């Protein structure tokens, strides 16, 4: 294991069972991601990039191998411990934003903080700071359906960073956005990485989006085939 790596993956394999048949998705992956890195996971459809991201985020379990993040082997954690670990360490950005439609932008951003011991006032300060960072303080009382796609994704980014996680995982964060709005979102991620030093792992099939990362990791048929600076 590399001493400086935030994420240290060794011999990681994942297979799904479909009708008594084992379908391998990831095969013997080794990967190190230092703290403060911005990695783009690339590859064709079915290459296993999203599966790898899910495993790093702790929302899926590997078939074999280890995933050490911040020194913790998350592959060995129980469901409950893994949920606690995610709440404390991971910020999620999804392709389709995944905001709660019945909650305002403010309430959506506040969600991860409800799992902390922060007071109501402290939560409010954190949420306002996060919304300020994505320049949406004027829309904090709006519901998701009152916001554009780009604005919704900015709310999702604010939600991902509000609890100050070690790691931000983004699954096709610009996949549902037009080019201009996508650029804005990527700039935001870039800013989070450069200004706040957040470690970001992003799945994308868009080379332009990947070029905003510091490093590109290519997968094909579940195998890591290339790892190079962006």
């Amino acid at each position, binding site marked *: 294991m590399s001493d400086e790596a935030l994420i240290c993956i060794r011999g990681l394999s994942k297979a799904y069972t479909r009708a008594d048949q084992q379908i391998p998705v990831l095969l013997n992956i080794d990967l190190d991601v230092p703290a403060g890195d911005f990695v783009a996971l690339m590859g064709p459809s079915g290459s296993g990039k999203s599966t790898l991201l899910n495993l790093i985020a702790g929302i899926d379990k590997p078939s074999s191998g280890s995933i050490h993040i911040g020194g913790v082997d998350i592959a060995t954690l129980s469901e409950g411990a893994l*949920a606690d670990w995610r709440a404390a360490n991971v910020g999620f950005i*999804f392709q389709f934003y*995944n905001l709660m439609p*019945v909650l305002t932008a403010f309430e959506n951003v506040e*969600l991860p903080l409800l799992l902390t011991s922060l007071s109501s006032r402290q939560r409010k300060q954190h949420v306002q700071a996060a919304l300020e960072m994505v320049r949406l303080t004027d829309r904090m009382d709006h519901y998701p359906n009152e916001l554009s796609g780009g604005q919704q994704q900015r709310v999702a980014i604010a939600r991902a960073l509000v609890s100050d996680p070690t790691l931000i995982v983004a699954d096709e964060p610009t996949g549902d956005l037009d080019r201009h709005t996508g650029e804005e979102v990527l700039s935001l991620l870039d800013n989070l990485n450069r200004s706040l030093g957040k470690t970001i792992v992003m799945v994308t099939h868009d080379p332009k989006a990947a070029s905003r990362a510091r490093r590109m990791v290519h997968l094909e048929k579940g195998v890591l085939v290339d790892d190079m600076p962006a």
Partner: protein
Amino acid sequence: MFLFKLLLKNAFRHKLRTGLTMVGLVVAICAFGLLRTIVSAWYAGVESSSSTRLVTRSAVSLTFSLPQSYAGRIKAIDGVTGISWSNWFGGIYQEPRNFFPQFAVDPQSYLALYPEYQLTDEEKLAFYRDRKGCVVGKKLADKFGWKLGDVVPIKGTIYPGTWNFAIRGIWTGAEASTDENQLLFHWAYINETLRKRLGNRADTVGVYIVGINEPNNAALISQRIDTAFKNSLAETLTETEKAFQLGFVSMSEAILVAIQAVSFIIVVIIMAVMANTMTMTARERLAEYATLKALGFPPEFVVKLLFGESLLIALLGGLLGVLLTLPLASGFGAVVGSLLPRFHVSAGTMALQMGAALVVGLVAAAWPAWKMSRIDIVQGLRHVA
């Protein structure tokens, strides 16, 4: 607090769906309450029975009379503290739909055995003195607008002719369960007439009401009475007033069982409807629950969300159903009148209604909550895509 806010917002996210589910619940809970009230009203006579009263009737059938001469012999039996008698009159006031029970009774001894019929001393005295007088329950008097001194003409069906009774007293029940829908008049009045017109039917009574000193001795005293008349021309059957009333109810027991069954079936139907609503709701929000779990919310949070939403809708629907039952029962009671004299929704029925709503809410959420608590986060998130 956040949990409550979220489940409240979720509950009314699809206003039409929630509204229609709630309408179904209101109707079901209301129907459940009304049917339970019908059953309770049917048993009202049983509930108001005294444990210190026995009823002696012909061992053959209630339609056979007993000689009035038995009164003295029954009174002499050890443990008997009082004796009275009554005959079912079965007359019609104006038209058959105005049905209410009328009994020919021995006034002094009867009212002594029924202290729950509360009359003033003046009213009692006026009744005792007037052989063509009668006393009526307050609900009956209110229903027909009768007041003291009014003459009530009743056309006999068992006892031929039209009989006019002057109201000498209006009783109020000592307890809520006391029947206030009867008319009592002098047994002697019809007996005199029967002597003149139908001599063979005179000096007979329908049932004897027997006061006893100790409820625990009811079986023993009943046995003593029936033994006293064994092998006579008119053998007797003595039972507690409650058993006597239950005998009437048992005649229509099949209907009551059917009504009770229907009341529960209604609850089961709405349970299925509500469960379907909650399952649809949960399936639609699969990605949201997956997102919450991805963010670190434990599965119990999703369970609480679904149970909370289901219970909120069910209990709100239940409460509205209970509130609607009250005026409906009142209207229904007015229509059925003295057929079901004590038709009111009891606190027990209302508690049952809310209990049914609670069970509906819990059962409806059980399956989707279990299912959603176990969803695979990755699969759930893909649901959006």
